[in-house]
């Protein structure tokens, strides 16, 4: 099957000389299979294979970034191969500005997660599942076929379930089961929506069934109420995945018990499947329902931001604290999507990337901490900054990025999300902006208890970061600073695709206009009220940069 797909890809018309997208999926997939076939007695082989696979995939994702055409709003590097003809199910991959950076993030975070932590036992299975997880993530972000997407979305569940359940801490089975059942339940709703949509949209030949994403969005056969129901089905699956309030309680459990690499990939990448899903399979597939549900979604997102922060502040376990902070941060990502304007959605995509970097970095640091002290309990830790200044310094930087201090990456996404939301529905943004206060509250509070003060007996021999650990952190630290100061290269690539989505919303939904600024519309009022000054104000308003794009 794989061979046939690969060969057909190579042969198909208009395809690039090298099938980079299938490679992104199949390199880790093949890697996982190879690791599974390796003898358990040679654990170092499986690690080497996993590292090799992850690095190769990472390099491919960087190559994709380099070759990506910045100004192209559509899907690039498209590859398709018929799979089930009667149902028009295809092996259909493509990348646009929205999925591009999620793919790159996957390509970067997985190797880092491999270097950041080693399994405590049974390395072979651990590496096999981790590599399979990478394949699933890549597939889910790249799929342009609804069935393929669903398959990939589900495939990611199994490895993570295994990673938590077998290589996790304490109550790992409880956490893994909860995670699995909760997400699976959400997926059931999504499956119903997908199948119904494939049938009702009638995008196939002669109005037949089709799972082809591009064909479906080209049709307009759904009744309004049907669209809303189907959106709801998708929304449940994605809301669980994000996770959005009130579907979030699996996350703290999963994070707390997951091994470090599991936490990094879960927070860094898998949660983004939820927000990415909302954008690709919510906003794009169901424009009318999106606009209709936007107030509900904004409300849930706002609650998530504030509520996640408050609950985070009350946690006694560092991993739970970061997990709840993810609820708050992903609330921002969700919020930006339903601002339904370019600023908000661009901010949301950026927030997904930034959250992956900063939270990934936080979990890596917590992993280092756990390897030294074998605890995540805040009460067990004290005064670490004095004995491990580099560790504390790096933690501080990542913490400030997470709080959203400008100049670091976290700010840009959050700021754009709030800006876009303010323009669309200002009071939600005003409330959600209090999230910046709460974020400072819980992180600084935790920082004080863990890092400041005089180290006690148990913590006074806390070793500082080793060279290898510094090397693991280095790329993330560079990204945190770079994306804070110069996010333009990322925003430039996201923008055309986001504009495409917003324009489609405007075209498809009657009476919907992208919420934008007044651009000095206020000022035009003067013209009528003060005739003598009106001309001047009008001149300013139209000549000023603000009146232009």
């Amino acid at each position, binding site marked *: 099957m794989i061979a046939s797909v690969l060969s057909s890809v190579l042969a198909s018309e208009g395809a690039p000389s090298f099938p980079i997208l299938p490679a992104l999926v199949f390199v880790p997939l093949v890697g996982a299979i190879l690791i599974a076939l390796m003898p358990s007695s040679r654990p170092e082989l499986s690690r080497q294979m996993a590292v090799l696979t992850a690095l190769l995939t990472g390099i491919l994702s960087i190559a994709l970034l380099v070759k990506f055409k910045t100004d192209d709003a559509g899907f690039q590097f498209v590859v398709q191969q018929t799979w*089930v003809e009667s149902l028009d199910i295809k092996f259909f991959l493509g990348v646009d500005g929205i999925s591009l950076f999620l793919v790159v993030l996957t390509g970067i975070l997985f190797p880092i997660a491999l270097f950041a932590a080693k399994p405590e036992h049974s390395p072979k299975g651990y590496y096999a599942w981790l590599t399979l997880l990478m394949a699933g993530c890549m597939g889910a972000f790249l799929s342009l076929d609804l069935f393929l997407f669903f398959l990939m979305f589900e495939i990611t569940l199994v490895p993570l379930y295994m990673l938590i359940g077998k290589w996790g801490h304490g109550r790992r089975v409880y956490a893994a089961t909860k995670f699995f059942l909760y997400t699976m339940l959400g997926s059931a709703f999504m499956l119903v929506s997908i199948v119904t949509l494939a049938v009702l949209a009638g995008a196939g030949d002669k109005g037949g069934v089709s799972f082809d994403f591009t064909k479906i969005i080209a049709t307009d056969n759904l009744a309004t109420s049907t669209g809303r129901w189907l959106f709801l089905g998708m929304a449940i699956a994605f809301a669980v995945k994000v996770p959005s309030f009130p579907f979030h309680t699996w996350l703290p459990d999963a994070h707390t018990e997951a091994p470090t690499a599991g936490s990094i990939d879960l927070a860094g990448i898998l949660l983004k499947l939820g927000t990415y899903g909302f954008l690709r399979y919510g906003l794009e597939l169901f424009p009318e329902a999106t606009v209709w549900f936007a107030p509900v979604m904004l409300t849930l997102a706002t609650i998530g931001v504030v509520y996640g922060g408050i609950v985070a502040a009350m946690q006694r376990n560092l991993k739970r604290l970061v997990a709840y902070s993810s609820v708050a941060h992903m609330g921002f990502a969700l919020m930006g999507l339903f601002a339904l304007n370019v600023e908000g959605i661009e901010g949301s995509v950026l927030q997904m990337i930034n959250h992956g970097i900063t939270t990934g970095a936080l979990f890596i640091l917590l992993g280092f901490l756990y390897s030294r002290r074998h605890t995540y309990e805040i009460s067990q830790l004290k005064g670490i900054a004095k004995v491990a200044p580099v560790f504390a310094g790096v933690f501080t930087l990542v913490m400030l990025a997470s709080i959203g201090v*400008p100049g670091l990456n976290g700010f840009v996404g959050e700021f754009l999300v709030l800006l876009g939301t303010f323009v669309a529905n200002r009071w939600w943004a005003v409330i959600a902006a209090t999230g910046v206060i709460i974020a400072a509250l819980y992180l600084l509070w935790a920082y004080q208890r863990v890092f400041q003060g005089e180290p006690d007996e148990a913590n006074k021999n806390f070793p500082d970061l080793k060279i290898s650990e510094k090397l693991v952190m280095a790329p993330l630290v560079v990204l945190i600073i770079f994306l804070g100061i110069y996010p333009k290269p990322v925003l430039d690539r996201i923008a055309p695709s986001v504009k495409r989505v917003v324009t489609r919303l405007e075209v498809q939904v009657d009476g919907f206009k992208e919420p934008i*600024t007044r651009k000095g519309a*206020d000022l035009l009022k003067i013209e009528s009220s003060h005739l003598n000054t009106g001309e001047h104000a009008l001149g300013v308003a139209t000549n000023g940069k603000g009146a232009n794009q």
Partner: protein
Amino acid sequence: MVELVWLIPALPLAGFLLLVFFGKRIGEPRAGWIGTGAVALSFVTACVVFAGLWNEPEHTFEASLFKWIPAGNFNVDIGILLDPLSMAMVLFITGIASLIHLYSIGYMHGDSRFPRFFTYLNLFVFSMLVLVLGDNLVLTFLGWEGVGACSYFLIAFWFEKEENASAGKKAFITNRVGDWGFMVAIFMTFFAFGTVTYTEFLPMAPGLAQTTATFIALMLFVGAIGKSAQIPLFIWLPDAMAGPTPVSALIHAATMVTAGVYLLVRVNPIIAASASWIPWMIAIVGIATAFLAATIALAQQDIKKVLAYSTVSQLGYMFLAVGVGGYSAAIFHMITHAFFKALLFLGAGSVIHGMHEEQDMRRMGALRRIMPVTAVTFIIGWLAIAGVPPFSGFWSKDDILAYALHKSPILYVIGLITALLTAFYMSRLVFRVFYGDSRWGESAEGELANLNAHTATDAADAGAEDHADAHEDSHADTHAGHGAVHPHESKWPMLVPLIVLAFFAATAGVLNLPFTENLEFLNRWLEPVVGENQVHLHLGGAQLTFELLLSTTIALLGIFAAYMVYLKKKIDPSRIELPFFANGWYIDQGITAFMGGIGRKGFELIAMFDKVVIDGAVNGVGRATRGGASRLRAIENGYVRWYALMIGVGAVLIVAFVMTQVSF
């Protein structure tokens, strides 16, 4: 020459980068010299650029480095707006920062984290320069947050002590409340104008709908009261004194805390376009803060706490100036205050240093003979803040009061009363520290019993002449409980800045003398920025003379009263130093009690709700399902391999379904 403006922030940034990577290797004292050199060069560049700016049209120069955040209709650059306002700010920031860096080389001598101190200090100066030079609100916000973060690092510099760590955290979080307002103001500005660049939206402000302008001004004001420590967000500043004294001088007196005033002056067209209650609110909050903080300062025993509340009070004057339309007066006072308050803090640092980390004024006295340079320079600072002519504070404070009188006699009268209190509490400080009897090393148990401020019981190495090590672990509250304290004068790196600052504290009034318009240099310099919305006072000779004489009388009266109380001891100080004042009107305790009590309970309730209701519902559904389907219970036995098997079976079924449909 004006193109060199980039170097002004770039030099401290370079210093920061050098120190952050190699600081430890560079070590003491070279790290200090690098830090000082970077900022001093920045000051020299600022002077060169200043000379160049004279030749620019309207004394304004704009430059953009690169696009920072382009998204949709939103676009901000990393760009510089150098105009008379930012130039004035840059000159005094870099000038004073250079002196304080130099001072720190002496003050921080022997600290185990000496290089780290200068790393933070350079980052701070960079951020502060970005704040004032940024050509748009978001870049100003970047600097705003940058200085906030540095303030956090430096307050908690000796983080081994819990109270220092708490003070840093409190400062950051209180400031974040203000930042919320700032952010919302940015959003509204963008919404209303489609741009957040000063030179683009400020000219449009006169045409703005009044409600919109009011909203923006109100939210910026919320931001400003956080950073500039006004009611009710002033509570962090007194605690911030936990940081090393040079930090208090630079960040918590001369520069960062004036950022709120700078912001309001910068957006003066927005304030002008907003409802008339906005300026009134700014003026009232300002004067109320000035008065309240002055009363609190009356009763403090810690020399740095007196100065901290004094700073809050003086910032109140600046807000008053903004509220009454005296923008240039606000900047004038900001500059003179930067000189004399930095001087006073550094002088206090010299005293604290000489007294082996003693901060309690009850254990000082008669220091003028032992620390002559510190004493003389401190006295100049005292006369300046007390408002004695011809020292700088007299002119700038009087300038503000003249605008206040123009707006309302009530504001003027309260302003005068506050001036009286200022003269009084500063005289109290000087008399108790430099005059009277020496009380060094006195345990002062009886007096201390009621105050929990100083609980340090560990007797420090009092006799050690090399007191450097005292910094590290027990710098702040350690005092020699029993016996020999040998105060000494500080060394030259600490004294030179004192002398330079004293010179300016004495003479900075010439920037803006009120006698003729020709002498109002600062007014004319700032005209392009604030001219349109500034109230133009044309004081007649008689009124001016009357006001100046009245101010002088008030200042002398305050000093005389303090003389009677603290040197002649005609009146019992406890009748003035009321516990109500000593405890800061119980505002801080009130807020802390609320946050720690009801606030915390609220948070706990929500966390409980999450655990019991939301997660409880999830687990409940899980249990109910399991209970109902008893035959399926076997799969719930918790064995991972069972689940794996079931998933495998499921996967096979799905694949089987697909295969039946496959047509390759």
